[in-house]
């Protein structure tokens, strides 16, 4: 009789080798198509500039204050994200740890969560003017809710059996939080952090589109007002790169902090 065995590791390795070229295939084809169509005049260049034109614009911007725009957007995201995420973990932990706090806070927070993000903008402008403050607050709101949800789900879902071990060793309330609950909730907290960071970038653009004199969002609206589709696309490309880079950084952190996990994800990498 003929026995065949499936060699899984080899198949996995092969899939991994193909992953990068496969992922790049579609963007490369689309970019090449756009380049060809624009050059042939099939698409008007003022609406869709050729990819090479966008690259040239980015190079030109680089010597005309692009770094300043990138830095001010990034700083806004980091400050707003840090504030929103910190508050999210704090309130999430409070809600997860006490039924009374949950009854008090959770309904209100869930109602606030249902408000579309852009609905805050007029109110924030009224309250805080067109300074930095409304932008930072809006970004913080964006980062807050994913973090809050992650903290509530993570801490609330910690295995009762591990908590019992903590009780057996008479951990204080604080030690129970820092030594058992937070580490056990870390996977969920990291997911909250990643989602929060993604939303922080999104809300940053919303804030800057409306009132700003610096930043990538400003570049977007400036490009629209001066009918420069190449500037708009350049800003979009930069936003994509920054968002992807910060998420990759977060993933690297996640892999490092969560290497103790015995999970499907862990075996896949």
């Amino acid at each position, binding site marked *: 009789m003929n026995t065949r065995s499936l060699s899984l590791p080899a198949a996995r390795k092969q899939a991994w080798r193909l992953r990068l070229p496969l992922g790049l295939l579609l963007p490369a084809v689309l970019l090449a198509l756009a380049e060809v169509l624009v050059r042939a005049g099939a698409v008007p260049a003022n609406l869709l500039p050729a990819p090479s034109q966008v690259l040239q614009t980015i190079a030109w911007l680089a010597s005309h204050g692009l770094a300043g725009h990138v830095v001010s957007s990034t700083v806004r995201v980091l400050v707003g994200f840090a504030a929103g995420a910190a508050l999210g973990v704090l309130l999430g932990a409070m809600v997860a740890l006490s039924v009374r706090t949950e009854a008090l806070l959770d309904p209100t927070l869930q109602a606030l969560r249902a408000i579309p993000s852009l609905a805050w903008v007029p109110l924030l402008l009224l309250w805080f003017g067109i300074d930095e403050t409304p932008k930072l607050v809006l970004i913080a709101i964006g980062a807050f809710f994913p973090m809050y949800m992650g903290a509530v789900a993570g801490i609330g879902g910690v295995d009762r*059996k*591990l908590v*019992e*071990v903590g*009780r*057996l*060793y*008479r951990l204080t309330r604080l030690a129970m939080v820092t030594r*058992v609950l937070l*580490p*056990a909730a*870390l996977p969920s907290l990291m997911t909250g952090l990643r989602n929060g960071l993604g939303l922080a970038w999104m809300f940053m653009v919303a804030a800057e589109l409306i009132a700003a004199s610096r930043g990538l969002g400003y570049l977007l609206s400036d490009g629209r007002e001066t009918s420069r589709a190449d500037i708009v696309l350049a800003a979009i490309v930069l936003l994509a790169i920054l968002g992807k880079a910060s998420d990759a950084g977060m993933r690297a952190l996640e892999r490092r902090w969560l*290497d*103790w*996990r*015995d999970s499907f994800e862990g075996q896949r990498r």
Partner: protein
Amino acid sequence: MTAALELSVFDKRHGERAVLRDVHLALQPGEIVSLVGASGCGKSTLLAIAAGLDTSYRGRVLQDGVAVTGPVDGIGLIFQEPRLFPWLTAAQNIGFGGEADPERIAALLEEVGLAGRGNALPHQLSGGQAQRVALARGLYLQPRVLLLDEPFSAVDALTRRQLQEVLLKLARERAATVLLVTHDLDEALFLSDRIVLLDGAASSFDAPRGRGAAASASIKEAILERLQPVQAC
């Protein structure tokens, strides 16, 4: 002589259902007692009460004559599952309950047959190895009373015998008093000075550890006979 551990549970309920009623059990210092009984008889509940984890019952627990109202260092508990913290190494798990003393942790690791594996994370250990770490953690604070809840039920027969011998040796060396819940009569006969059958109340059988196969067999017979009519307890 004051009992090392004295349990008196008059009434323990889960909701409406009475789990334990009028159970009295006293362990002499250094005594190894197995607790057997059909599943659902409240064996694990009784251990949780003895460990101070469960305090919603009518009755009392005395260690050396002193009331136990919550977890104490002098009473250790080893669960049915290893319950290791997955983000801590084996060594960190063992030292979890107190100040980390690398020498004592290394010595315990060696005693449970895991010398040099202190840096392994729980997911890198097999089920039997994880349970060894749990045993070491339970012994780390040198409790005078050690409670075990079917600790070896999930490991293979060979590992089980090894761990039973480790337990017996360490308990002897430390003159620890041991209360072991098990569903394995052979394990109970092998390990204990006395077997207690929990069937509503608690009735005792003197166990014949090292007293030969014939005596063991007759005690096993007697316990099984008692166990049958109360299966539905």
